[in-house]
């Protein structure tokens, strides 16, 4: 078991023939992901990386049975790509694109609300089920099949956690990069919930950052549902100044509630094992899983 993506996922790449799309599609194929084709409007009927190219997502669903999509479309067209995937019946839509206007995402999020799909991202490193399926840009070699699930707003900080878990001998089930934008498809709480319900996941690493209220929401949910699995948490930006955007569009302290300290306090109160240094994620997980 795993969540969101596995070896049976039929993946298409939107923005397939672009440089980013090509590079990462190749990497995903090499990792063993079942890439069934790609979509580039106007290039339908051709082949790329030995896979068929379609004009529309609907065509990719119809002809190649695609159920999962990864989006590398440039920011100006990415929200449209998300809505196209949702309309075509794609079940898991993973949007890597960084820099989508917030207004576009408000509309896209509203549009997909009553569609039968889940959006991950945008501005995220994707989703990775260790040694099974990579739908993202994470480096495959640091993963090892194991028992810890990861939810994170950040890319390289996720790799850091993955690497520590591999070195601690725990390995991973699925790592979900939910993205660092103000509006994202799947919240921290929703991603944590998926992992809580996954029988193979024994512990969860939850990595957040300054800005917004998603970590607090997840923490309250974890407590309300009885802390069924140990969660190790970290919030990046303990030293970030108020009112400055720290790289990610969503990483900005608005008030007293969305500082790292405020989030960490709530997480601790909800029974999450909060680490203050990101270097301690792996060892802490090893310790708390050992105690169970």
């Amino acid at each position: 078991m795993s969540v969101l993506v596995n070896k049976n996922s039929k993946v298409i790449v939107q923005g397939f023939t672009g440089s980013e799309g090509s590079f990462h599609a190749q990497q995903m194929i090499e990792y063993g992901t079942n890439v069934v084709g790609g979509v580039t409007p106007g290039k339908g009927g051709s082949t790329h990386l030995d896979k068929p190219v379609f004009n529309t997502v609907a065509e990719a669903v119809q002809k190649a049975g695609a159920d999962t999509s990864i989006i590398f479309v440039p920011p100006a067209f990415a929200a449209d790509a998300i809505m196209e995937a949702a309309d075509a019946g794609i079940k898991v839509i993973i949007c890597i694109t960084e820099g989508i206007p917030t207004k576009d995402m408000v509309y896209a999020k509203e549009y997909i609300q009553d569609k039968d799909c889940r959006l991950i991202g945008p501005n995220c490193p994707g989703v990775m089920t260790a040694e099974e399926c990579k739908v993202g840009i994470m480096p495959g070699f640091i993963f090892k099949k194991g028992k810890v699930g990861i939810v994170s707003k950040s890319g390289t900080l996720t790799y850091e956690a993955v690497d520590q878990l591999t070195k601690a001998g725990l390995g991973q089930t699925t790592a979900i990069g939910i993205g660092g934008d103000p509006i994202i498809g799947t919240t921290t709480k929703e991603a944590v919930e998926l992992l809580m319900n996954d029988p193979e996941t024994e512990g969860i690493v939850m990595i957040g950052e300054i800005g917004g209220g998603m970590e607090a929401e997840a923490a309250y949910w974890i407590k309300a549902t009885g802390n069924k699995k140990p969660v190790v948490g970290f919030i990046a930006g303990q030293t970030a100044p108020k009112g400055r955007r720290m790289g990610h569009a969503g990483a900005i302290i608005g008030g007293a509630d969305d500082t790292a300290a405020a989030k960490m306090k709530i997480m601790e109160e909800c029974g999450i094992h909060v680490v203050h240094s990101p270097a301690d994620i792996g060892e802490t997980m090893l310790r708390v899983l050992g105690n169970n």
Partner: protein
Amino acid sequence: MNIHEYQAKDILKSYGVRIQEGIVVDTPAQAVEAARELSNQTGTKWYVVKAQIHAGGRGKGGGVKLAKNLDEVREKSKDIIGMQLITHQTGPEGKKVNKVLIAEDVYYPGASEPKEYYISILLDRGKACNVIMASTEGGMDIEEVAEHTPEKIIKEWIDPRVGLQQFQARKLAFALGLEGEAHKEMVKFINALYKAYVETDSSMFEINPVLKTSDNKILAVDAKVNLDDNSMFRHKDFVALRDLNEEDALEVEASSNDLNYVKLDGNVGCMVNGAGLAMATMDIIKLSGGEPANFLDVGGGANAKTVEAGFRIILKDPNVKAILINIFGGIVRCDRVANGVVEAYKNIGEIRVPIIVRLQGTNAEEGARIIDESGLKVFSAVLLKDAAAKVKEVLASID
């Protein structure tokens, strides 16, 4: 992106939002000319001289002054232009005032008392839609109102599918206690304001105060507008609104090199790939006994050129006593980054501060070997906790 009050008002006016009229100038002589012209246009007898900097609290800091005649306009403009204006948002060093807005007096007496309100529009991240916030407590710091009298803040959430509805605008105007002509004017004001917000792809509008004049007009006396950086491709004309004088010189240099850099006050500089890891690295510096001197994300394509540009920017900060480079190579290969560090080090010449390089991920060992064999005064680490220990060690040796 932040813009000045006068720029924000220009934008609002172009969408039919009534504003306190004004003319922006650079010198006291121009200020007098502007005041004359303003009287011709609006009939105003008094003037307000307003410092144009990107910070709130200008009035309390002495950056907004009333002038009752042209001599006073000249005098007050002379005082304000060139001053180092300190407000609670500028930091202790303040900000230099280069321009002033000569604005009409809108608090003239009349049939009713003028009254100030507060209106803002912003994104509610949790609900994933825009929210209009209004309050009768105009002119006050809204964070304080929210803390002490939250019931005095009224909110209307806007459904993205249909946009602002008229009943919502009416509701807000009634909740502000307005009636008759003033109510009608407020509904008009809110409609125009929301249209401007959506069509300019803004991420925040804060109009504080919104004024009901003594003759029941509703207008924006001040305007804080924040534009969404990600939508600039749709608004090429907004790019020119950026005022580099308002930004830190090092941040400007970094952005021209496509580096995401935020200047901070600490003593340990850092260079990292990825925003989350960059913030986490700042936190590690603090936990190791230092203070971060900056946030710097070199992005996914870290190479010799970006590393060198990053180095140069960090080294220009005189407070920096050590530098921590933290790269987790996914797509980025650590050996390339290591070569970049060595090359940059040689190109820059003398680097007086110790450097700790932590390379992890793709070809990490190779990267560490390149650093170790370079003969440079660079410490290498592979594990994050080793890097943290090295920072501690280096800081101890400096003290």
